[in-house]
């Protein structure tokens, strides 16, 4: 591990060489890029307007016009599936952004400042790890609803997922900071008079970066699942077109009893693929950054 | 008793093969103590581990034979090999490492091979284990403790006790004193010498520290870059080192009785074992090297019982 700021570009190309050798990593990347493409190209590749209703074509299984069939109102499910990609990605990424920022900040401070502040923050991190996440999210969204704030529910959801998911990141950052803190070069930097922030930014962050990135990718996976679950429970924005909402309406309209598998299976499969994609990428990066996980004697 | 002939053990990596042990021979009789010396990475540990085929999954014995009492270990079936392990040939790893299972009691770990290889009751095995603990100078009471409750030196003793559990004929000691302080080092050395005499044990001692070999071994084999460069009895080697590397090694250790000179380190660095040079592997660092040493590998010259692989002798 280099002791000064790692030359970023050189490490990046070296990293890519190793990464592209990992089947898991490449497959995950393909999946994720595929969904990003669909989200970006939605207006161009969607055969219908997803909110368009056709009362004469309800509850249809997949056919030549509606490739994934229609729902109870006559929406074309294929179009809805395509547009649903956007919500999942947006919520996933933004919520993760919040989690990472909060988690990194708390992790950094907790690790860097020992004694009272550090210990206290460590307890806070552990506390958030212990709290069951789904009930917490439900309670938070319920409260926001009761407050009748003007904030659009989509952003409420993003915010709630973000502030319940930071503890994993914080834990990783904290342990990395603790181990790096003891090293010689930090002492040297301090002796030369470098300020605290400078030390953290210049010396600690670059070493911590790969693990944080891996953790961030895995957090996106979790955030997508959380968003889908909240939508399904009816806590999200009922007007948005998302995979979770599709399933919510499917269930509330007895799609199960009507055997409308085309309404139920595709959203699930899409969720699985997207989440798997992010997870595979995250695991690959973790394996590459942590040599022991590769099983060789370090 | 032990004949290692033309042993070749390579490690498989993405870019090819690392020739860690390249055509090495040595022999051991009953009750003999052989020292296997060389710097880190020269292949000595790999060579010793090859004797019982205790290699990581990416390493394999590519050629040669390891004859133990006439039988070739390299070609042996796994079942036969497992019966030889520890019962005939055991190993003392560095005790400072994590070579002991942290969640098992010492007495259980020592009794484990006894129960495996011999038909004894659990109680008998534990009894023997406790006796062995005492044998190496540790209070019997401590046998039921866990590894983390012992100091480095004591863990080394435990490793020795464990290695003797099945009364083996040959014990391989891998850097047994390297991580210890000088006082403990001497104690362990004394213990090993004592055991060698009492039990007529054959031993192979792996180390980079020539002084330990001088103290405890009968013969010495010096390895460099995966190859055997000198092989003779200890007295001849130290009084009359034939290979430049050996002389370099000896000079690198300060001698209390010798003239007051600064120890000389050997300039340069070890060869790349992935693509080793064709000629003598020590040539790049050798003060006596010339054109002769760069073409084919040097011929083996035998000088009575003193073997050396060098063009210049």
């Amino acid at each position: 591990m280099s002791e000064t700021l790692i030359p970023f570009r050189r490490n990046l190309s070296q990293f890519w060489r190793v990464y592209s050798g990992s089947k898991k990593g490449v497959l995950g990347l393909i999946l994720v890029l595929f969904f990003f493409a669909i989200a970006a190209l939605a207006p161009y590749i969607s055969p219908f307007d997803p909110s368009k209703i056709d009362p004469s074509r309800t509850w249809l299984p997949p056919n030549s016009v509606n490739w994934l069939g229609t729902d109870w109102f006559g929406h074309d499910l294929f179009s809805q599936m395509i547009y649903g990609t956007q919500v999942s990605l947006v919520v996933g990424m933004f919520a993760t952004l919040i989690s990472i920022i909060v988690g990194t900040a708390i992790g950094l401070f907790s690790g860097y400042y020992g004694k009272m502040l550090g210990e206290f923050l460590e307890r806070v991190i552990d506390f958030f790890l212990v709290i069951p996440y789904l009930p917490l999210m439900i309670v938070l969204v319920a409260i926001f609803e009761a407050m009748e704030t003007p904030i659009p529910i989509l952003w409420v959801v993003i915010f709630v997922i973000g502030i319940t998911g930071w503890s994993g990141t914080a834990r990783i950052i904290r342990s990395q900071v603790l181990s790096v803190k003891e090293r010689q070069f930090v002492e040297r930097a301090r002796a030369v008079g470098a300020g605290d922030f400078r030390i953290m930014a210049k010396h600690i962050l670059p070493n911590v970066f790969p693990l944080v990135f891996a953790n961030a990718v895995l957090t996106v996976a979790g955030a997508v699942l959380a968003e889908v679950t909240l939508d399904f429970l009816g806590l999200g924005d009922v007007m948005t077109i998302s995979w979770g909402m599709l399933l919510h309406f499917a269930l509330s309209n007895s799609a199960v009893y009507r055997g409308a598998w085309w309404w139920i299976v595709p959203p699930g499969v899409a969720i699985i693929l997207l989440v798997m994609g992010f997870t595979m990428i995250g695991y690959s990066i973790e394996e590459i950054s942590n040599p022991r996980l590769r099983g060789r004697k370090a | 008793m032990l004949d290692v002939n033309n042993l070749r053990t390579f490690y498989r990596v993405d870019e090819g093969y690392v020739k860690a042990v390249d055509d090495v021979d040595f022999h051991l009789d009953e009750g003999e103590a052989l020292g296997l010396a060389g710097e880190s990475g020269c292949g000595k540990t790999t060579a010793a581990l090859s004797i019982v085929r205790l290699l990581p999954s990416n390493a394999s014995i590519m050629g040669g034979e390891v004859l133990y009492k006439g039988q070739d270990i390299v070609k042996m079936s796994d079942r036969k090999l497992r019966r030889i392990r520890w019962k005939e040939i055991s190993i003392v790893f560095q005790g400072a490492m994590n070579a002991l299972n942290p969640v098992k009691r010492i007495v259980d770990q020592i009794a484990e091979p006894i129960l495996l290889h011999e038909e004894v009751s659990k109680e008998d095995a534990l009894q023997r284990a406790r006796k062995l603990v005492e044998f190496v100078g540790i209070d019997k009471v401590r046998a039921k403790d866990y590894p983390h409750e012992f100091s480095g030196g004591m863990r080394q003793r435990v490793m020795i006790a464990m290695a003797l559990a099945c009364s083996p004929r040959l014990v391989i000691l891998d850097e047994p004193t390297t991580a210890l302080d000088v006082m403990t080092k001497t104690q362990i050395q004394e213990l090993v010498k004592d055991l060698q005499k009492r039990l007529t044990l054959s031993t192979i001692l792996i180390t980079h520290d020539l002084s330990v070999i001088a103290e405890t071994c009968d013969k010495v084999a010096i390895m460099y870059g995966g190859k055997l460069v000198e092989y003779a009895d200890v007295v001849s080697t130290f009084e009359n080192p034939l290979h430049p590397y050996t002389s370099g090694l000896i000079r690198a250790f300060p001698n209390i009785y010798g003239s007051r000179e600064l120890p000389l380190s050997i300039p340069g660095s070890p060869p790349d074992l992935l693509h080793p040079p064709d000629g003598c592997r020590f040539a790049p660092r050798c003060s006596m090297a010339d054109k002769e040493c760069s073409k084919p590998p040097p011929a083996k010259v035998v000088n009575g019982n003193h073997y050396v692989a060098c063009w210049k002798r």
Partner: protein
Amino acid sequence: MARSRAAYLARKSTYAFITVVIVIVFNFLLFRVMPGDPARILIPRGHNVPLSLIARMREFYGLDKPLPTQLVSYVIQTLQLNLGYSFYYKAPVADVIAAWLPNTLLLVGISEVIAILLGFSTGAIAGWRRGKRFDLFATSFGLTTWSMPTFWLGIVLIMVFSVQLGIFPVGGVRTAEMAYTNIFQQIGDVGMHIILPVITLTLVSFAEYLMIMRNSLVDVMTEDFVLTARAKGLTEQQVLRDHVVPNALLPSVTTVAIAFGFIVGGALQTEIIFSYPGIGMLTYMAIEFRDYTLLQGLFFIDAILVIIANFAADIIYTYIDPRVKFQ
């Protein structure tokens, strides 16, 4: 150095207790954060709520008293398991939860035990045969089930087995209005109802345990004492069983404790899908009917369960790792 396991655990239970208190305070603050008159939100009007109930709730929350006093009395009351009154069920929250909790414990208990046994054993073999076919299949399978939304898996199982094939009942925990003549009939009936929920929850949890054990095992395999074990002449199975797995279990137990937070979420979803009358279903009802007092009580119980599970993991850990210092 006092090597007392009891003292160590006493210390840990103090931490657990403090965490419980923090949860209660957190719970309290959550609902006070709302602007406006808390009374409007916490104490419902209309809905045929009897005045006596409103009065009791007003008393419970003590809304006319200053905030610090409210907080203290709330903490004390909650610790005494006085969790207020559910306006929807017209009964004390604690009683309502107590009635529905056993079903959840049954579901989660069975599922997690199976998931841990399956997950750990599969993970151990996968780690041991790292990179080979078993490992690839196991990790791919685990990856897929982990990426599945729990509720979706439940829905699919219902569709296939209950609706299409008619093998299992669609929901609930027992056949309504069925009078049990003997215990076996009861077990059989409950069993039929609980199979699909158990499968759902087990499948989703199992992946986590698999990965935890697998990674732990791969780490342990690189340790030197594994080489020593092989050198002794032990077979690969013996090395795995006697040396690798016992050490791989240690970090696995601690990591499992962290997974408990997710298990509650999974159980919640499963109960909702299968209309299984446990506290997950109760949570859903509480949201539907905006019964915030009930919701608060449920959140508290959820957190308690996770804290207890963590504490249990701590206890177990002291028995399996001899290096734990009891100072």
